[in-house]
């Protein structure tokens, strides 16, 4: 059941990205171009999404199980650290270069864009790189223990 509802949520998200214009990288860059011909549309996307999101998270407050009986798993991290800021800045530089965030990348992939597919491969490589880096200290720790 949770697979079907996740599929539905993914579809709705994809439609939202298409309808809003977030699936069009040149439009996204138009929003980030404050000094040029500025297209404020993206602010309306965020406003619409957060308006619904705030209600949903308010409804979810205090629940330990979802409507389908799944355990509610919300992030517990609170700390604002270097990792959060540096990671977000790197993401922002990348987003500002091509105008593609991960969600838009999946939409472009589904639309059959070759450039979108290349972007996604690079994105996966970036995530893989992060993961390798995370594993390295662990591997070193194992080596010292052995």
């Amino acid at each position, binding site marked *: 059941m949770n697979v079907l509802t996740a599929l539905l949520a993914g579809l709705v*998200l994809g439609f939202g990205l298409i309808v809003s214009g977030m699936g069009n990288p040149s439009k996204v860059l138009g929003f980030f171009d404050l000094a040029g011909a500025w297209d404020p549309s993206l602010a309306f996307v965020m406003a619409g999404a957060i308006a619904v999101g705030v209600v949903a998270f308010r409804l979810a407050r205090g629940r330990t199980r979802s409507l389908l009986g799944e*355990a509610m798993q919300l992030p517990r991290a609170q700390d604002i650290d270097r990792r959060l800021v540096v990671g977000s800045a790197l993401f922002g530089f990348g987003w500002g270069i091509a105008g593609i965030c991960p969600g838009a990348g999946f939409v472009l992939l589904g639309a059959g864009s070759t450039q979108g597919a290349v972007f996604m491969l690079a994105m996966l490589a970036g995530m893989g790189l992060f993961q390798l880096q995370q594993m390295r200290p662990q591997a070193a720790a194992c080596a010292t223990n052995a």
Partner: protein
Amino acid sequence: MNIDWINFTPYSALAGGLLVGLAAALMLLLNGRIAGISGIVGSLLQRPRGGDFGWRIAFLAGIVAAPLLYSLVALLPEGRIETGWGPLILSGLLVGYGTRLGSGCSSGHGVCGLSRLSGRSLVATLTFMGAAFLTVFVTRHLFA
């Protein structure tokens, strides 16, 4: 400030935004999960335990299927990428690495995090939006 009235689409942007929010609401209220795309992809790369594999794949498959279904009933809006191959690959690497290091992207921090009034997500969102504004300023105006 110079507003690009020709490309400004407040109604469709708002409508699409409401759908994005609805998707986050569905994931939260039905599955008890945050609809954070980079986190979902990242944990697939870490080989999640059996039960957590299916819904993640299904969620991402839904996003990929959306343009296919959309094009059956209406003309799919153009997704124009004006970035050359080199910068496109650099962009993908930065987006992949950065979202994992910063634990989220526009959906996880931007939509879900701000909706749950998370201070951490507010800092993340201000940082990545700021960095994107700066990047476009540098690439389009300083070194154009």
